[in-house]
């Protein structure tokens, strides 16, 4: 409870400081809108019904954008995971894979994932596939590398112990090697998520795709229209989604690991 209170006070102070700077009129309100006008934008793009004569044309727009972005992200992320986990295991298990796939993964993981955007556009045009490709490339290599080092770091005595108890092949992989490398895999999943999220935002800002306007596009139009309240509003939403993803997707795993392994706290 005390921690929640600390956080609430911190963000209240932050908002107040923002409001004070705006009220001091150091910068033009066009460049630095106050919290209230950002709030008005968020209201207008979500629940505001408008008036009877002029219904709000932008109602629900933010939710649609979030939905489209999350669909792209979720699908690409799942594909990246589904491919990355087995590839990482193969890389850890076989010397030849380590010398080929492992080196490739290491190289491509170092490539900022936004660099995939031009290539993806030339290959797939301005399409959902192009977006998906960028997200997959952002996720895949981190997951491969994390899985590889996770599997490589599994204490061999676990596998030996499991073998004496009658565990073989698939059972050993699923029940021993995978859970033993969980700490590595989760941190890899987290990094993969962060890379995918960043690259998708970059792609959406660069590229207009007619099959759906995501959060990045909303941000981009904010700039085109000089609508700073929209730019900041969308940024706030993006930050919020990042936080939420961390709390919903990864925190439960991390809490489980802290409890079981007894790490930290």
């Amino acid at each position, binding site marked *: 409870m005390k921690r929640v209170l600390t956080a609430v006070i911190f963000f209240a102070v932050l908002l107040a400081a923002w409001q004070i700077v705006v009220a001091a009129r150091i910068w033009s309100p066009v460049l630095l809108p106050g919290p209230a006008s950002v709030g008005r934008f968020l209201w207008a793009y979500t629940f505001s019904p408008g008036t009877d004569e002029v219904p709000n044309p932008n109602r629900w727009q933010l939710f649609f954008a979030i939905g489209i972005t999350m669909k792209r992200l979720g699908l690409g992320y799942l594909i990246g995971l589904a491919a990355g986990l087995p590839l990482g295991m193969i890389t850890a298990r076989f010397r030849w894979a380590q010398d080929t796939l492992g080196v490739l993964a290491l190289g491509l993981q170092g490539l900022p994932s936004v660099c995939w955007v031009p290539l993806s556009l030339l290959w797939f045009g301005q399409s959902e596939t192009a977006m998906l490709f960028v997200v997959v490339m952002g996720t895949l290599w981190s997951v491969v590398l994390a899985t590889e080092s996770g599997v490589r770091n599994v204490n061999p005595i676990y596998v030996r112990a499991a073998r004496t108890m009658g565990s073989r092949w698939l059972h050993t992989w699923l029940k021993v090697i995978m859970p*033993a490398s969980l700490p590595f895999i989760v941190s890899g999943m987290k990094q993969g998520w962060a890379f995918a999220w960043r690259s998708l935002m970059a792609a959406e800002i660069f590229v207009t795709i007619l099959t759906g306007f995501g959060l990045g596009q909303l941000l981009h139009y904010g700039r085109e229209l000089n609508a700073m309240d929209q730019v900041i509003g969308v940024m706030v939403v993006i930050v919020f989604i990042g936080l939420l993803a961390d709390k919903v997707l990864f925190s439960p795993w991390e809490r489980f690991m802290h409890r079981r392994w007894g790490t930290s706290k």
Partner: protein
Amino acid sequence: MTLQQELAVSPSAKLAVKGVSKAFRTGGELVQALDRVTLNVNEGEFVCLVGPSGCGKSTLLNIIAGLESPDEGTVQTDGVPIRGPGRDRMVMFQDAALFPWLDVFSNVMFGLKLKPGLSNSEREEVARYYLKLVGLDSFHRANLHELSGGMKQRAALARAMAPNPRILLMDEPFAALDALTREQLYGDLQRIWQERRKTIIFVTHNVREAVCLGDRVVLFSTHPGRIREEFKIALPRPRDINSVDLAEHATEIMQSLKGHLRESEVHE
């Protein structure tokens, strides 16, 4: 199958190690870890393998477990040659090797779940029985990091005994524990062994420990790993590690061990 029936099946086995040799390459040099080792162990016998580190006693244990294969020679349980690891020979490792992603109960269940012919509730009953036997009945849901070193080894013992192996292989299981905890475990292990009568091969470099636990103490020499001498220990049980009789036996074996060590130094 009731718990009593499950406990009654798979009696302890006879073990025959015949002319087993094994060499390792370490740093380009060929080390003869085991040189034509022959050892016969009776049903329900408690045998301790003692020797300096590097004498190949752990290697022999791994070969019996089926985790490594010998260069030469055979290992048979009740006349059947072993091929790879099997549920009839369970291993208890030095650092427990319990799975940190499972709680205590699930660790004991791991091997049981792989054992066919039991229903899940029977498996749980068996797991509860062994956890009680080692004195961990109130720690079913504990995480491993919450256990002390001694409790971890108790859990490891329960896990190794749960699938009801015919032979129990123990690789310096108490080496990392403090003296007081170890003494407790000596008592417990003797009690459990008398209750369950498994054939036990126990590897240690602690002579007193070997005399306290074993029906027989087998002395290994190093480079190459060979059996040098055997000692029958006829002391009554339960044995107290601090008793004078036990100390006398241990001193005798210690003298002989030192003699072998000097001998091998002269040869090198």
